[in-house]
């Protein structure tokens, strides 16, 4: 009798619903993001194909804008899955950039020390954010909103007090030849692009000191950082025990705590990671542009949250995907720059963004119900 039942049903479990492998591979949190990405690219291929959007310069343009969104979206995504928000991301970007300018230019410290100290300060502020949220039980919405103002205020006050101005330049000169500066502000693959330029695959400059050089002369480190952070975030979330803790902390923190998940530690670490991502964004930006301004990063926190939500994460936590957030960021970047290429009146960008957000959220809700089986 026991033998018979074993042979009849070797590996099946009546609690697990049967699902075809096709359906299982299709129905994922990222599905909405994938559908949206395809739709957006089809749209712009139809309406902006010959506008320069898909030549080397155009591709680099929307890639780097998307990469910017991706860097902050990865942090925002993990934090949101852990059940919290960080509204101070945009102010943190401005603040981190200004710290680099103050230490590196005004005080004249070596760039690598400057960058390391800036990271330490910003991650510490992230930890303070997390600590206050965890200890007081206040909504992170309010706590980080406070830091949105505090950091923005300092970003304006510090350079005004020290230098009597709100934009500090000269960072590029200060970072010249610095090894850590190059990791954020450099470009790689220069030789390859030069070859492509010589072969006539991509356009070259027609005049000036850079005549004959390709118009795109390498892949900026910003894009490499974006890819690295996405891979890190995805592996952390889906392949490790810590990833399960993130989901648990955001899904039902009380239940997670009772089953031994260090919820507080997870949340504080995620706030620190979000601050880290914002600082990466800021460092890449000041290294590329050579100046830090008090208005940098305005509203970036919402852009990060929008990318994450387009990518299928749930605002209330416990559900989401880093790959989805990355696709959300890609959609955001392609639409923002693509509308310029398509020659659309720029004030319509917000209309379009709103429509995408609404469409994505509705679609994602259906996909989530399919996955989780909730009604």
């Amino acid at each position: 009798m026991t033998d018979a039942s074993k042979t009849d049903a070797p590996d099946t479990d009546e609690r697990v619903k049967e699902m075809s492998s096709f359906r299982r591979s299709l129905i994922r949190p990222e599905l909405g993001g994938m559908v949206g990405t395809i739709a957006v690219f089809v749209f712009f291929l139809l309406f902006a194909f010959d506008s320069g959007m898909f030549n080397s310069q155009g591709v680099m343009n929307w890639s780097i804008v998307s990469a910017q969104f991706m860097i902050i979206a990865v942090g925002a995504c993990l934090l949101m899955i852990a059940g919290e928000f960080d509204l101070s991301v945009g102010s943190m970007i401005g603040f981190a950039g200004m710290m680099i300018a103050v230490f590196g230019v005004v005080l004249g410290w070596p760039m690598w020390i400057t960058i390391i100290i800036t990271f330490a300060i910003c991650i510490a502020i992230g930890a303070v954010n997390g600590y206050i949220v965890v200890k007081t039980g206040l909504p992170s919405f309010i706590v980080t909103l406070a830091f949105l103002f505090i950091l923005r205020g300092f970003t304006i006050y510090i350079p005004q007090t020290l230098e009597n101005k709100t934009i500090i330049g000269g960072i590029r000169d200060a970072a010249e030849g610095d090894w850590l500066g190059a990791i954020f502000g450099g470009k790689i693959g220069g030789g390859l692009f030069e070859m492509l330029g010589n072969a006539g695959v991509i356009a070259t400059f027609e005049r000036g000191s850079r005549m004959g050089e390709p118009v795109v002369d390498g892949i900026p480190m910003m894009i490499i950082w974006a890819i690295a952070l996405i891979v890190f975030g995805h592996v952390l979330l889906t392949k490790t025990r810590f990833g399960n803790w993130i989901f648990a902390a955001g899904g039902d923190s009380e239940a997670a705590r009772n089953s031994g998940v260090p919820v507080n530690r997870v949340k504080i670490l995620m706030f620190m990671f979000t601050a880290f991502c914002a600082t990466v964004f800021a460092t890449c930006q000041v290294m590329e542009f050579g100046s830090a301004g008090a208005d940098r990063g305005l509203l970036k926190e919402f852009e990060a949250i929008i990318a994450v939500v387009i990518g299928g994460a749930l605002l209330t936590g416990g559900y989401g995907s880093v790959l989805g957030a990355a696709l959300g960021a890609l959609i955001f970047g392609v639409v923002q720059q693509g509308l310029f290429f398509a020659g659309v009146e720029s004030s319509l960008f917000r209309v379009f963004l709103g429509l995408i957000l609404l469409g994505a959220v509705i679609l994602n809700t259906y996909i989530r119900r399919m996955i989780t089986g909730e009604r």
Partner: protein
Amino acid sequence: MKNLITSLVIGAAVLTAPVAATAAGHSELKYVLVSHAPDSDSWWNTIKNGIALAGEQMGVEVEYRNPPTGDIADMARIIEQAAASAPDGIITTLADFDVLAGPIRAAVDQGIDVIIMNTGTPEQAREVGALMYVGQPEYDAGLAAGIRAKGEGVTNFLCVNHAIQQPTVGERCRGYADGLGVELGNSMMDSGTDPAEIKNKVLAYLSANPDVDGILTLGPVSADPTIAALQENGMAGDIHFGTFDLGEEIVNGIKDGTIAWGIDQQPFLQAYMPVVILTNWDRYGVLPGNNINSGPGFVTANGLTKVEEFAGEYR
């Protein structure tokens, strides 16, 4: 799924309308104007009208682009984007030389003609390889305002700065202080851009500093709430009040005596002239030999009719 498709279709309909409209024109030349102004800054409406009129008269296509939040780093991306779409010319402001010089120089090297308008200096325009600069040198305009205000009896002033993040705009306050011959000190106020906040900050400053006898505002964003503040505390017409730029409220203020004068940098010219110059340069190869100063021009209660008629539209 269906919802996404529906929303995309709606989006496509919204998008194709303006695309179709521009494609229908008989234009051969295409120019892009890139500004640093956030969507909320209504002053730039005059610029939009200026390029629309110039485009219509010259028979060319001119597009207006700006970073929605006013983030200069985003503006650099827009200039790179504009260069990638290969227009015949780019008209742009130089709000932060460090950030924008690279992208502008790359566009110039790519073979695109560039004119710097509004923000920047003639020297910086030359340095990035632009054809010319069309605008009002900020410090000089502030200095002229300060000298004039000194003659009109101002000794102690408040400068209401609604754009503290833009150093070039702050130069107006510095020039004004130098024109008066006093230290800038704490006279420059970071007012923010919210009208109610500006109004209350001005009220608070004036009651805390009763010896202030002159106010300078840097545009409609700070001038309109300041007018309201002065009307509330009864100092309207009593305290000397000068402002940069014009707008409907400012014109009314000049008329009823609240404002002594408005400094018109004539934004219309900053938008209109570059389009005309670029078109003639591309068509016939002719180019004026110098930069163009669009301002400063002092607008007082005399001769307000034209200003009033076109305030917010072309003035």
